[in-house]
């Protein structure tokens, strides 16, 4: 079970009030977690990564275990602490704009 923390606006969009818990079949990577997240909450398609290129949106960042994973390749394996549910994967709206 993988825990995912969404930013405020995306929690409202997805109508969730706390962390999201996802079960991933196979290897847990950024890509597979985002696939599972979007499958459960289709309203988030396009909000975290581009619908067509699947590139991370510029002002969205990914963090886990105090590491910035935003620039890692999508098929990078997530840390063990995230995979076993000790730590959440944080999806964060970057500080930008007003």
């Amino acid at each position, binding site marked *: 079970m993988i825990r995912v923390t969404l*930013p*405020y*606006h*995306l929690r409202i*969009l997805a109508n969730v009030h706390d962390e999201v818990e996802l079960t991933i079949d196979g290897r847990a990577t950024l890509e597979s977690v985002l696939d599972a997240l979007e499958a459960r909450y289709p*309203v988030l*398609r*396009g*909000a*975290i990564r581009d*619908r*067509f290129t699947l590139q991370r*949106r*510029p*002002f*969205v960042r990914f963090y886990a275990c105090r590491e910035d994973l935003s620039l890692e390749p999508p098929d990078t394996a997530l840390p063990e602490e995230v995979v076993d549910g000790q730590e959440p994967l944080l999806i964060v*709206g*970057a500080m*930008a*704009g007003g």
Partner: protein
Amino acid sequence: MSQVRVLVGTRKGAFILTADAQRNRWEVSGPHFAGWEIYHVNGSPVNPNRLYASQNTGWFGQMLQRSDDGGQTWEAVGNEFKYEGVPGTHKWYDGTQHPWEFKRVWHLEPSLTDPDTVYAGAEDAALFKTVDGGRTWQEMPGLRGVKGDLWQPGAGGMCVHTIVLDPKNQDRLFVAISAAGVFRTDDSGKTWKPVNQGLKSPWELPDPAAEVGHCVHRIALHPSDPNTLFMQKHWDVMRSDNAGDSWSEVSGDLPSDFGFPIQVHAHEPQTVYVVPIKSDSEHFPPDGKLRVYRSRSGGNDWEPLTKGLPQKDCYVNVLRDSMAVDALDPCGVYFGTTGGQVYMSAENGDFWSPIVRDLPAVLSVEVQTLQ
């Protein structure tokens, strides 16, 4: 008993203002979608409780929301806006070619006959259509085929910001694009042609016969006479009496012919409203006086409407989608400002009062007259 419902899009959410036909006691609902830019909220003419809202942020992109109860509850619908085929390129600020990239929906125009059919004007400039209540959207690619490679963004981006449906000819639509001009289809969007003859943009377009490239800010028509169009261009207020085939200037005695919105009175096809802005360099009213100008003769002769509006130290702007009229008698006229005020006049513009004073910057105003 009639009611009016004012749909306000702002930089930080949507607001819905309602009143009875007297229009002197208002209820304010919102913010809906707090924190998001709401470029436009619009309702179906045939099912007024069916609303559509364009919701966007730089962080999380474009969402489309739909309500079936007049804005009490909302449901996110489809947000997949894909350009047909190979999107190609358009002209960039430096004159080079730049790939077409979807950014946001500026304007939503529901069909006059079907609540599930809506047109969406997008940046980068393209027209999309849904026929299933917003669940899926398809581009109408013929529009970009009209010299789209020569279209160039203005300071606000390159967007389809105005969509006007001809109430007497369901095959005819007009769109206006910054900075490309006005385009018309007579076959329900399969083919389009630029209708910009007579527009003059000497500073931006040295070629006086340029078919595209004009920075049109807004067009409007009266439903009883859809061949007559009024236009607020970047500079110049214009008029066409042949569905855009040719235009003539009707700026007349305006203190400035720069501005953004233009509207037509609900019951008087020759009564037109504009809000002059000092210049493209200084986006605020001339002399710090917020004045709506009204022409009762279809242009050229304009009178300032000032009663109830600030006549000193006022430096707000009124954006292109931020003026609307209701269908009551006397006609109500409404506009929103970048200072967060929504003003209304229940007397054809003769007297004004603020409905609200302190919203976020207003991006759009639509009015529904409910029976």
